[in-house]
């Protein structure tokens, strides 16, 4: 394992039997799992290159139990790693050897559907897709749609601030969540926000969203639901050059059109996807755009025409427009299966997740090609083109000595390039352990100290999900200390009147 996790607390490990018994007293029956065989299912999440069995797994089914577990662990100085469905691609739910793995899988109930206020109040273990399904009969849906939506939990979505193909138009999780019930590491249960548009006081919901399970354990969530658009149609446009495809994306946005989704694939990704699903993708193009317009039929038809005109002006070499739902779904089939398709052409692959300004796309792809040469590893690119979120898939073979290390170094260089081009390390998969040690490439020590001080406001002992997100752990007392600046009392040289 290339990533160093916090040193295990031997004193805690020595008391394992006692800890298991204490947890059983809180969550009776099968809610506590402590045999190696049964714990195996929890030893990694979607970032499967990293595995670590936890000390013990606990699966509470009430908020009170969560509160008692956290209070007990806080009192005993035991680390806790929260977990939803375990689909994180950044290792956010990787267990700790001396930590309790707190699974929220039993929180599976939708508590309230309120169509008048256009919200659903749900427990965190409900899957993203199940929320949309629960309100579909009234024409509603929950907009953020990460590609793992069939499996990923809404609690995990909040922890990671998940995106999806449609977040260009409808926002990420943070733009679609109104409130929550959260249990702090101390065991304290708090309610934040509700069915109103805005919370009182500081926007704690906003900072909890995307906090990767480091601030608290969410036990209930209130999400916004929307009416489904009347119709959707897609264009599939091929280009002989990546630059032309990038220009097309810029011109569509520049024309004031915000498509429901706008995806790009490069040649290796197109070929892999076509071989897998036979969606009819053109094989002689360097870049393929799938652009989906949604809304009332009259609007979609009009925008399809406008986008087609723009694509032609940018020198598109092929352009197909869906005329039926079946055809639209076929266009998407290849894109949606891009990851497994790449899995067919390579024994293993690493999925990266940087974001760049849209305009930097050609530069970024050129850099990735250079790096591919340098590391002697293939790379297929899929790209949420509308919002600049790049997913290079680095192809490697874990059985060949040194390849995983080379793949990881290649990936790190891609993310550093994203930052260099004015972008960020992660667009939607989270920092977790995967990008933890790159945080210093994007943030200064001072930036990271401020973030960690915020963590202290929620979890002063640093027991909740330690070792994730931040490359260096500091004690809260140390972070809270005021620096004494040189020339501190001297009055600043600032105009005064």
């Amino acid at each position, binding site marked *: 394992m290339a990533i160093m996790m916090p040193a295990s607390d031997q004193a805690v490990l020595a008391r394992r039997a006692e800890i298991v018994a204490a947890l059983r007293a809180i969550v009776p029956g099968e809610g506590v799992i402590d045999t190696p065989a049964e714990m195996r299912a929890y030893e990694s999440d979607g970032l499967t290159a990293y595995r670590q069995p936890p000390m013990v797994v606990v699966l509470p089914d009430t908020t009170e139990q969560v509160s008692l577990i956290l209070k007990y662990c806080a009192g005993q100085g035991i680390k806790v790693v929260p977990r939803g469905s375990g689909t994180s691609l950044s290792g956010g739910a990787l267990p700790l050897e001396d930590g309790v793995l707190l699974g929220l899988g039993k929180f599976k109930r939708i508590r309230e559907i309120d169509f*008048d*206020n256009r919200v659903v109040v749900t427990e965190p273990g409900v899957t993203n897709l199940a929320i949309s399904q629960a309100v579909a009969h009234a024409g509603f849906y929950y907009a953020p749609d990460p590609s793992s939506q069939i499996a990923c939990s809404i609690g995990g979505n909040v922890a990671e601030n998940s995106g999806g193909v449609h977040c260009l138009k409808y*926002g*990420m999780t943070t*733009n679609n969540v109104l409130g929550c019930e959260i249990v702090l590491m101390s065991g*304290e249960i708090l*309610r934040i926000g*509700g*069915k*109103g*548009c*805005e*919370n009182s*006081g*500081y*926007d*704690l*919901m*906003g*900072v909890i*969203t*995307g906090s990767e399970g480091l601030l608290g354990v969410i036990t209930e969530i209130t999400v916004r639901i929307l*009416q*489904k658009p*009347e119709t959707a149609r897609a264009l599939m446009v091929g280009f002989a050059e990546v630059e032309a495809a990038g220009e097309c994306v810029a011109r569509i*946005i*520049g*024309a*004031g059109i915000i498509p429901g989704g706008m995806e790009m694939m490069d040649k290796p990704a197109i070929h892999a996807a076509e071989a897998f699903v036979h969606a009819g993708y053109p094989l002689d193009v360097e870049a393929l755009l799938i652009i989906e317009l949604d*809304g*009332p039929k*009259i*609007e979609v038809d*009009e*925008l399809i025409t406008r986008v087609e005109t723009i694509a032609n002006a940018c020198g598109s070499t092929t352009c197909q427009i869906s005329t039926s739902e079946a055809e639209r779904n076929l266009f998407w089939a290849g894109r949606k299966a891009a990851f497994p398709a790449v899995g067919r052409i390579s024994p293993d692959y690493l999925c990266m997740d940087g*974001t760049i*300004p849209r305009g930097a796309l050609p530069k970024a792809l050129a850099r990735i090609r250079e790096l591919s040469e340098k590391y002697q590893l293939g790379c297929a690119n899929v790209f949420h083109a509308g*919002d*600049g*979120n790049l997913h290079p898939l680095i192809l490697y073979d874990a059985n060949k000595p040194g390849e995983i290390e080379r793949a990881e170094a290649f990936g790190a260089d891609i993310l550093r390039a994203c930052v260099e081009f*004015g972008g*960020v390390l992660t667009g*939607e*998969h989270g920092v977790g352990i995967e*990008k933890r040690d790159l945080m210093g490439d*994007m*943030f200064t020590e*001072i*930036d990271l100290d*401020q973030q960690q001080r*915020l*963590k*202290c406001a929620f979890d002063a002992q640093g027991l909740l999900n330690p070792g994730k997100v931040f490359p260096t752990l500091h004690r809260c007392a140390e972070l809270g200390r*005021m*620096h004494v600046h040189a020339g*501190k*009392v001297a009055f*600043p040289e600032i*105009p*005064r009147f």
Partner: protein
Amino acid sequence: MDTLRVRDAKDVEEAVRAAIANEQPLEIIGHGSKRAIGHTMATNAVLDISALNAVTSYEPNELIVTLQAGAPLADVLSLIDAKNQQFAFEPMNTAPLLGASATGTIGGMIAAGLAGPRRIRAGGARDHLLGAHAVSGFGDSFKTGGKVVKNVTGYDLCKLLAGSWGTLSVMTEVTLKVMPKPEAERTLLLRGLDDAVANKAMTAALGSPYDVSGAAHLPKSAFRARTDELGDIAAQDEALTVLRLEGITASVSHRAGSLRELLAPFGTATLVEDAASSALWATVRDVLPFAAGGALAAWPVWRIVCPPASGAALGTQLARETGGEVIYDWGGGLIWAALPPKADAHASAVRQRTSAFGGHATLIRAAEDVRRGVDVFHPQAPGLAALSERVRASFDPKSILNRGRLKRDATA
């Protein structure tokens, strides 16, 4: 009064460090346009960021603009308007309501986080702030977020800065998302509905697939204070329920037709187009019927956020009990209440009723002596209040920045 006019982020750092050393809290101002909101601050030292007013970069094709925090809001709106773009959250101009002369700065817009009617569809200031550079109460410059829309790298401190009223950090530079202006705008107008029925009509519209971008109700009583901005539309002095549609022209016309059919049980909607429509929504956004220059200038004004479908029940109760006037926005989820003058601005009634409906209320306009005696911002449950205070202290442990603005008991 001691005023420090800072020129750059370095100046801000120095000013804050000196303030820490001298244990002298600072009031952070741009144009001072929203100075009358909140409690009187426990300081007479002012940090004026209005000279930090440059446009760092504007990239229309990337849909972003990066600005120094003191950039005048009005100038920035003109700048992006020239490229046919806008801030989709429709920031409120508080000047008419507060009787201020300036419309304020970008920093103030974010620190106050007062979004307009499109909040229901496009989100608030917090949803459009992509990144920020700021100086904390430690006297250190830090950055959070970035210049791209999709970003989950580290905690999203931008969310905390938006709506923090300058109590966490001094923002020096911010990156905001801009969006294309819609090609067309149409408003459907229903007349004469009482509040409860209007709330139902707005709920029906917002639950439709017609992408309503504004849903407001101005009860008849509110027009006793009406201003000329409403023009002919309000001439009949009836209640108005207004629903806005935006987008490409063909789509807006189509949706207007469909929505009108859907709303038929509530009456026959008339259509207001383009300029008249936008004047109408500016009236709602800036709460012009309660303007400082109008008949209700002396009345305290509350801003109440609640579950949208409960708006009418809460609003009518408050109006009845106090003899006040209300205006509904956000489909009922935002109530502006102007209440007859009273020593406590009816705080106990407002807070009690609002809390019962799961909402929260801010006393947005009141004389200083009234604000001294009541909580301007909605008191939170003890656990949440304690967490909020820890969060505040994590940015500013010595409470140097805008000390006492949010909480009455902290002014000592």
